[in-house]
């Protein structure tokens, strides 16, 4: 019953991509991708020092496996994962662990986190790997275990542990969607990956599809990615003889690369509130995650590098580079010809939803898809923040059909619960509302703050209700004790009120006392035996 309520219209596998649907709102943005795609994809040489934050993903940190001063080989695990929600990290090159120290990281912005420093020995000495070109012979659990050991996490930016997406209790899954529609301006790392290694993406999709037991794999790309489509078409027949993969081009409206929006575009269905794509029989993964899965299974290579876009109006030679994880961003900027003098912001991710970086020493991690540099002239605002004029432009562009300006008014007044009732948690923080706001209100900041406050309030509520439950249980216990004692007393009083019983009681008590006395006099006759025994 509950299941039927949650899935009023289960998605049919064969319907997916038959026609494309629209999601409400969204923006047509200039994509600015060409500038970074014109230079060929090259490999950044491994820098002397790599900085590897222990926690690069959602979920818990694994157990540390190495010591300071230890020699490690390329691909050697540095932490161990104990469950599907924890992701290990691996040495991107061979060398020595120089230390474990606090180092600037991208998230949370402006903070430090425990980071392993690896000094490269320049040998690139691989640890022994376990390649399996014939992956069809592996069963689902084995594939997921290998992917987990290989440190797979969502490379689209969210870094969600892949194993946790593949293994779980949900209805029958029928389709794996590979998200290749990177809709934010400037970011082109997935486009370059698909152009250069389409076969890896397809094969990775087939491996993941095999592990999930799905019927088909749908690769969603944008309609202006003609080169990507051609690259896929060239290799599709060879890599995928069973024709399980389909490439579907979706129109380019930001944020259609968001998981929930892409699902809506391809299926016409919405992921249920508080639900997962799995509730619709779907799993959605990034194309780069699929390519990494292919390398992980077929070649036995864990995730130790990724493609990163270095772009933005303040970058001299925008480009895409294959970068060892742990490389400080300064090295990437140098490889892209440096940045303008009036640099104002460094951003990890895109201009609409990326994280601001506090330092260029922050290292690249698994989810780092793009480094964007903006000069002061590009971030300058023409007016101060003004009052909301209720123009409703934010309502028109919100892809989650929220009322951004009403949420803002509640949050400004610290009415967090009203904001919760207006579905603040359905906000995907795409930034469309703030992008069109004529009053220049930093709406996304308000929503993040509001969500944080609500989480704190929720935790406080939970703590308060736990305390209340404890208090009530204690009261109940005391009351019960009291009741039991009262009952016993009453029983005894009742007994004593009946003369015969009372007499018997008295009699019995006298008997007991007598016996005890007799016993003690017996004992006193042989005091030594007792003490010696």
């Amino acid at each position, binding site marked *: 019953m509950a299941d039927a309520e949650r899935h009023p219209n289960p998605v049919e596998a064969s319907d997916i991509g038959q026609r494309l649907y629209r999601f409400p709102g969204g923006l047509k943005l200039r994509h600015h991708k060409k500038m970074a795609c014109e230079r060929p994809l090259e490999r950044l040489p491994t820098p002397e020092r790599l900085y590897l934050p222990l926690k690069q993903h959602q979920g818990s940190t694994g157990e540390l496996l190495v010591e300071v001063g230890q020699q490690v080989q390329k691909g050697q695990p540095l932490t161990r994962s104990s469950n599907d929600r924890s992701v290990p990290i691996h040495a991107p090159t061979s060398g020595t662990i120089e230390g474990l120290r606090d180092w600037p990281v991208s998230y949370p912005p402006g903070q430090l986190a425990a980071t392993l420093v690896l000094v490269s020995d320049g040998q690139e000495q691989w640890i022994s790997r376990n390649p399996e070109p014939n992956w069809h012979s592996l069963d689902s659990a084995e594939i997921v275990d290998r992917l987990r050991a290989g440190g797979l996490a969502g490379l689209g930016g969210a870094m969600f542990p892949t194993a946790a997406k593949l293994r779980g209790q949900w209805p029958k899954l029928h389709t794996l969607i590979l998200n290749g529609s990177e809709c934010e301006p400037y970011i082109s790392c997935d486009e370059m990956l698909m152009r250069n290694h389409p076969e890896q993406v397809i094969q990775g999709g087939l491996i993941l599809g095999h592990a999930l037991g799905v019927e088909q794999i749908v690769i969603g790309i944008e309609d202006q990615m003609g080169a990507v489509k051609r690259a896929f078409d060239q290799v599709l027949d060879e890599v995928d003889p069973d024709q399980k993969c389909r490439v579907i081009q979706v129109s380019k409206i930001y944020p259609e690369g968001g998981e929930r929006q892409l699902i809506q575009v391809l299926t016409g269905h919405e992921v249920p509130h508080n639900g997962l794509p799995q509730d619709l029989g779907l799993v959605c993964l990034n194309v780069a995650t699929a390519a990494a899965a292919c390398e992980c299974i077929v070649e036995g290579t864990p995730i130790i590098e990724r493609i990163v876009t270095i772009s933005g109006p303040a970058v001299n030679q925008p480009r895409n580079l294959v970068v060892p994880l742990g490389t400080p961003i300064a090295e990437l900027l140098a490889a892209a010809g440096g940045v303008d003098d009036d640099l104002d912001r460094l951003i990890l991710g895109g201009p609409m939803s990326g994280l601001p970086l506090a330092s260029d020493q922050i290292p690249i991690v698994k989810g780092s898809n793009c480094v964007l540099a903006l000069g002061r002239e590009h971030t300058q605002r023409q007016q101060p923040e003004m009052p909301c004029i209720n123009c*409703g432009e934010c309502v028109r562009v919100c892809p989650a059909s929220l*009322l951004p300006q009403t949420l803002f008014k509640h949050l400004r007044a610290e009415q967090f619960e009203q904001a919760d009732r207006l579905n603040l948690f359905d906000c995907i923080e795409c930034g469309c509302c703030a992008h*069109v706001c004529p009053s220049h209100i930093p709406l996304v900041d308000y929503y993040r703050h509001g969500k944080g406050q609500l989480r704190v309030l929720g935790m406080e509520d939970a703590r308060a209700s736990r305390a209340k439950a404890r208090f009530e249980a204690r009261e109940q216990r005391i009351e019960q004790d009291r009741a039991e004692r009262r009952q016993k007393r009453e029983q005894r009083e009742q007994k004593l009120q009946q003369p015969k019983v009372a007499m018997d009681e008295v009699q019995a008590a006298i008997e007991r006392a007598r016996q005890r006395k007799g016993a003690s006099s017996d004992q006193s006759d042989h005091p030594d035996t007792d003490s010696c025994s």
Partner: protein
Amino acid sequence: MQLTLSGPPHFPPINTVGGIMRQVLFALIPALVAHCWFFGWGILFQLALAVGFALAFEAVMLRLRGKPLQPFISDYSAVVTAVLFALCVPPLAPWWISLTGMLFAIVIAKHLYGGLGSNLFNPTMVGLAAVIIAFPIDLSQWLAPRSLSPGLPGLAETLRAILTGQLPASLNWDTLSQATPLDALRTGVAENRMVTEIRANPIFGDFGGRGWEWIANFYLLGGLYLIWRRVISWHVPVAVLATTIIVSTPMWLLGPDVNPSPLQHIFSGALVIAAFFIATDPVSGCSTLRGKLVFGAGVALLTLAIRRFGGYPDGVAFAVLLMNMLAPLIDRLTTPRAYGHPR
């Protein structure tokens, strides 16, 4: 290296408040020129007076409220209020009409309610309603449009009329002024004459009033420009015009003698300017898309009801103010279903 750590999005927003208001002003230029052509120089003086009073009141109120002058004066919102007001009053209306109108619009409707973004009622319509009630005679004295006029008053005569409230001796109200088409229709129907008969009066043009219908066309043009530039959404204008047509067509078909045609409804009075420029005021209107449709429909229905049953020939100002009262409730009842929630 000093890096800015501020939240996304990282490029500045594409719009500004002043930019939006300037677009509205651009969109009014064609209608303004047409107004000038059909009714003479008066509108230019009305504009100057209204804008002057509006900015003066705005500055005083900002000072009294301890707000910075520069960003709020340069947001053009007071100018838009003033220009729309000037377009709604008769070209020869004396200066105190503007003064009173702007006093109610800027001081009372806008700043006493909290300034830009906080007013419950459309400032222009509050100002207009105030002068309609306070100066009913002055507000009904419209000039005859150019082609019907023995000669529109010249620059100096216009100025003198506006400054003194008296027509120069050389001019005569009876020849200059004329009932507005809506007024003529109203009195005509009240005297049991047929609409076709009333429409024989030369003040009526092809659809609405002569001159008036051309100004309405230019409001329409400006309104389409605003929709194209995404300054306003199509919902309110479409709702206003569609509701007018849907409600007045059956009445006209059933009783063409007593009910004006839908096109006459649209092309006379302030319906088109209301549809595109007044009912679309964001602050006092609805913000949900379905709410905008309801809001527009309500404005049209109330306008038609006031034209037919009310005490004023045109009821746009009151219709908009009445709908302003309902806007928060409409917004609340039309909250869209968020992504992933049950239908």
